[in-house]
Each structure stands twice: as C-alpha cells, then as structure tokens.
C-alpha cells in the first residue's frame, strides 16, 4: 500500500482537558483531568460528573467570530474549533477544500436545541415564536454542514452515525477514499456536545458513575459523559510531499467489525473488538508484539472494560502492551471519542509518552488469563518518557459497532 500511504498532516482537538492541542498535551502529561460536576448543561441531574468543554456557546461563538444571533448548535461549535485548528496545522487553504472531503461523525447532532425547543416546535407552549431555525439544525447532517461551511466549501461532506465509534468510522471512510484514489485529502473525525437527551438515556441504562469514572479498575461503576470534537487531516503521501506538508503520523491500518451481540452491551468474549483490532494489525502488516500502546475504549462501565480486556488477551496473549483509557480525563465523548483519542495518540507519538489511566487502583481479574496483571499505564511508571512507534486506538459503540485504527510515526 506504499503508493497510497495515508499520512496525517493536521489535527485539531477540543475536550474537557483543553481547547487545542497545546492545552490538551499539557493536561495529558500532567495527569490533570477535566471531569467535574455539571456546570454548563441545563439538567436536573446536577449530581452528575461530566467532561464538559469549559466554555458557553456564546464564548465559543466569540472565539469563532460568529455573531451571537446566528442559530447554531453546540456540536457544531465544538466541531468548528477543532476543524479550524486541524486545517491551520495542515496548511490547507480555503481553495484546497474544493478537492477535499469532510467526513464527520455525530449522533447527538442538534439535539441540544431540539430538547430545549421541542414543546415549542409542537405548539404545546404559549410561546408565539417557534424557533424554526432549530428544526433545521436537528439532524446529524445539519451539524456536519455547519462545521464544514464555517471552513469553506468542501468538495463533498457526509456524516457517520455509529454512536460511540462514529468518529473512528469517519476516519476509516476517509482512509478508504484515499486508498481508492477517490481523492487525496480528507478531513475526518467527529463532534458531539452533551445533551440532556443522552445524559438521561445513559442514566436510564444505569451506567453513569456518580463519581469520576474509574476505567479499567476493578471498582469501576460506570462512565461519565463528556463532549468535544477532533479531526485529522488525512492525505495521500504523494499529496503531502507535493505540498511540502509536515507529516505528523501515518494511518497504517484500520478495522471495523460488529459484535452482533446486543444493542447496548458488549459480548463477554469481545468478538467485535477482537476482530476490529486484528483487522487493523493485519492491514498494517504488523504482529501483536509490534504494538507499543493501546488507547482503549475503556468507558468504565462494568460491561465494557472486561469485554475489551478479553478481546486484547485473545489478540495479544497474557502479556498486553502498555494500555490505558483516557476517559478519566475527558469523560466519554461518545461520537467524538474516536478522533479525540486518535489525537491523544498522535500527541503521545510525537512527544514519546504514554497517556495515563486516571483514577486507577486495582486491576480487573480475567479468570481465563490469570497470569496477566491487567495493569494499565498509571502515573509513576515512567509514562512520561516512553519510546513508542505504533499505537492502536479503539472506539466501540452501541449496537456493537466496534472499530480500531493503527497509527505510526
């Protein structure tokens, strides 16, 4: 695949641990998480711990230079900030966008405004003004196009919605388009804001931890929801060379498989996760022993983490590569998590460190692999200086939509 090797020439990120890569890197290296009690989302569940981006919509609009009366949803604001950073780094101009595709993953889309105005839409409130603009911003595609249009005129745009693996699958489609020679530049990733809708949805499933989440820990009790956005600029190596673009990393493999087990739970054997990781490795032509770090999906729910560990054991045997879940930093940023964590991996590769797994105290036992210590990367084990070349980044979703990508430097 060397003819169409896919390189990454730009990236942008926003999450609870920072707006932009500089703040993000600092938080990751210092082990400072962004999960805190609800402050921005309007909800009765004020007891919830969440990974909010610490800005109001108005503050983000001011940063973006968008007039305050423009109807825009929070998912799109997060996306615009991340996209702007990614494009700036890549050096792509507005003119280049006509030849560039934009693939966005989201599920919440404009739900933050729909839930605010739903009874007005239905005429069930006394409000005389129906905020029609927010009907048009409801669906996933509308969020995507608001983000895209802020940057300019992309040659094509589309949206993927596979719940919590949406952004990873957006990156996979982008990569596939470049491999097929359909285009040589794709901006791919995802954006998702917190909404009352899915906070309550996860709450009904009883998988929210009221404390800061403890992924990969024996005492884990659920996830914290988070929000954010991130994009990678994917490019054929030939195109990057032609432009003289700086290469941040290489996307050398990807895998997508379906667990086909349950709509909201993972199989005990982690079949989908196993297949996705195996495909990514095989596509990259690598052995399990070549992997230097795994950024786990690791939500912190009782169900996900042992299933993912089992999948890792099936692929890597008893001795796992260094692994961690970064959800303790950001909360679970759902549809955006695949690209946010891909940017974390890129930062780790660029700066040669291992992101730590926050809030860890004791490992999860896997009775089929009793020899394995199942210890994630934690502070104090020289995580801050660790040579790494190849990392796997996992993103799994409801419906068993499991994906994994392999990044290299």
């Amino acid at each position: 695949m060397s003819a169409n090797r896919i390189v990454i020439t730009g990236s942008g990120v926003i999450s609870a641990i920072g707006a932009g890569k500089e703040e993000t890197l600092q938080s990751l290296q210092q082990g400072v998480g962004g999960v805190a009690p609800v402050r921005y989302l309007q909800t009765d569940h004020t007891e919830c711990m969440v990974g909010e981006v610490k800005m109001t919509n108005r503050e983000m609009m001011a940063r973006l230079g968008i007039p305050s009366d423009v109807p825009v949803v929070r998912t799109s604001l997060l996306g615009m900030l991340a996209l702007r950073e990614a494009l700036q780094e890549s050096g792509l101009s507005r003119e280049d966008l006509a030849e560039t595709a934009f693939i966005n993953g989201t599920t919440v889309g404009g739900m933050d405004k729909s839930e605010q105005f739903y009874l007005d839409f239905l005429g069930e409130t006394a409000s005389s003004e129906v905020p029609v603009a927010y009907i048009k911003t409801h669906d996933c595609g509308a969020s995507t196009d608001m983000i895209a249009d802020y940057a300019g005129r992309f040659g094509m745009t589309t949206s993927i919605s596979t719940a919590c693996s949406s952004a990873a699958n957006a990156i996979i489609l982008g990569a596939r388009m470049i491999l097929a020679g359909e285009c040589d530049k794709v901006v791919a990733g995802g954006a998702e804001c917190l909404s009352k809708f899915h906070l309550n949805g996860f709450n009904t499933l009883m998988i929210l931890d009221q404390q800061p989440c403890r992924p990969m820990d024996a005492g884990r009790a659920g996830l914290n929801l988070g929000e954010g956005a991130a994009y990678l600029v994917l490019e054929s190596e030939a195109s990057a060379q032609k432009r003289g673009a700086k290469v941040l990393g290489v996307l050398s493999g990807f895998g997508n498989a379906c667990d086909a087990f349950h709509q909201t739970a993972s199989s005990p054997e982690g079949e989908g996760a196993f297949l996705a990781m195996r495909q990514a490795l095989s596509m990259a032509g690598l052995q399990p022993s070549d992997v230097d770090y795994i950024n786990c999906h690791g939500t912190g729910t009782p169900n996900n983490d042992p299933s993912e560990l089992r999948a890792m054991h099936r692929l890597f045997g008893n001795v796992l590569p260094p692994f961690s879940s970064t959800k303790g930093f950001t909360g679970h940023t759902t549809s955006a998590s695949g690209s946010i964590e891909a940017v974390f991996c890129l930062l780790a590769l660029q700066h040669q460190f291992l992101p730590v797994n926050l809030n860890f105290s004791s490992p999860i036992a896997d009775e089929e692999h009793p020899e394995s210590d199942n210890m994630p990367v934690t502070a104090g084990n020289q995580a801050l200086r660790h040579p790494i070349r190849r990392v796997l980044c996992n993103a799994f979703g409801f419906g068993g939509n499991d994906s994994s990508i392999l990044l290299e430097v």
Partner: protein
Amino acid sequence: MEGKKIFVQAANQISIQKPLCREWMENPIAYSEPFSRSIDPDFKPYVSPVEGRRMGKVLKRALAVSLQTLRDCGLDQPDAIITGTGLGSVESTEAFLLDMCQNGEQLLKPTHFMQSTHNTIGSLVAIQTRCHGYNATYSHKQISFESALYDAYLQLKAGETGNVLVGGHDGTTPDYFRLLELADYVGNGMNGTCGEAAMAALLSVGDRSYPNPPLCELAGVKLLNRPTIGQWKSALDSLSLPDDLVVFSGENGHPLNDSCYAAVLQAVLHGRPAVPYKRWFGECFTASALGFYAAAEYIRSGKAKNVLLLTIGRSGEAAVVLLKGLSVD
C-alpha cells in the same frame, strides 16, 4: 475507478406502495394527502410477535426488507451491512424526547433511548443475522442512503468484500411531519406527498452463485457538496454516462426543492428523459433508496436500459448513482 463489477443482486421495499412485491409498478397508488404512512406487510415471516412488540416500525420494516433480500439471494447473512438513515428510529427518539420534555428527568424508561440511536437499525440486522462483518450507518440528510452506497461501492470495487447489504430507512411520524412543515421542507401547498422508506438491496461482485440473475449493475456513485455547474459536469463525466439513459430525479412537488433539480437537469442533463420517482413514494430523508430500488426494477423489467439516480438536497448535499443494464457478454 478500476476494479470489480458490482451487481444489484436483489432489492425489496416497504413504502406507501404495496410492500415486498413488484406488483405496485403496474398500478401505483396515487396519494393526495400531504403525508402518508407506509403499507405494512405481515411481519410474521420476519420477526416473532414477542420481539416485534418491542420494536418500533422503522426497525420492523428494516428487518423485513433485509431478511427478504437475503432470502432472495439464498444467504443467511451478508458479508457487510451498511445503512443510511436521516433520523434513525424517529419514533423512539420522539417518545423519549417528549417524555423528558413533558414529565421531567426522573422517571424515564430505557427502551426508547436504546432504540433511538441511528445505528440501532444496522445493528439489529447484524444481531439477527449474526453478521460480524463491516457495519456502518450514514446519516447525512437527503444523501444518507447514497453515502451508505458509496461506502459499499468503494469496498466492493477494491475487492475487500464479496457482498454488502445496503439499506435506506426512515419513518415519518405526524409530529416530525409537522416540524418539516414548519421548516417549509414539505407541505405548504406542495404538490406531492410525504412518505416513509424501508429499502434493502444486496450488492455483490458475483462472489458466488445466486438463485436469480442480478437486476442491474451499479456502475458508479458520487457524493457532492454545494457543487458548481462545473463540478456537476466533472462528476458526470467521471461516470461516462451511456447514451440510452433515464434520469430518476428527486422532485417532490415543493417549489423550493424542484427548482434545485430544474437548474441541474437543464444545465447538465438536458434532453435526458426524467422520472420523478417521488410521485410514487413521497418524500423523506431516504426516499432516494426507494428511487434506487425502482430504478433497478425499471432496468430489470426492460423499461429503461440505464438509470442515473439524481439527488439534490436543499442545503447543498447532492449525489449521483449510475445503474446500468447487464451487458450481454
């Protein structure tokens, strides 16, 4: 794009026409109401009554058209499942949303939330067919289905997979219809109806022997964003359109929608006969999936040699899909 030839091996629909059959084509039902629900088939051959009670209509229909399409192909499971939907299981989303808005955040139930994510549809088909293969869901307004088709096309062309079950699924509820009316997407004197879509098609590269010959060939898919006339021209040029071509176009009777089509038909497809297929199926986010199905049937039955499916959304999303008759070689 070089690569393998892709065939539409089978396709089925549930819509406002007679479901799961071809007979509707002889004498399509005409609708004068601004909004109509699909005609549901007997679901018993596809889903047990107990399971069915827990599923919304979008899910049940998706399962029926998917399983029927696989049965037509003599398959228990496809290699991959790729789904397009503008709204996912809209009934479940609305039920959860309304409950939350009216009754607050304390006593909500999980079932509607679990079925509300867009990928519930494709995942249900995977669970039912135990398909661990590639699975993805696209949700991009009017080109949700074409996006799914595009992904399938790339994978089949590259020889990564032997067959893909692609689907386009959307329900239209009375409440959502009202919202679309408020936004002036539909209604308001529109000379056409709103419908619902459930369509599944099996695409293959002739990876095995199938009980029936394919309906047609899928010869190209292009997705576009706010294309200029120049970009339209180069997209169509890249498809190498055959001379004998019918355009299946997405006019729905709403002036703001139809004017988008008129401009493009005039500028780049002038003189090609056009069939506005939404007069049969009505409008919804994945109405073009039904257009795709009807176009494949048109070719199979000899009503057209080749069809170009043209989709243009009002906010600039656009797609073209080229279906060709089977070459006699």
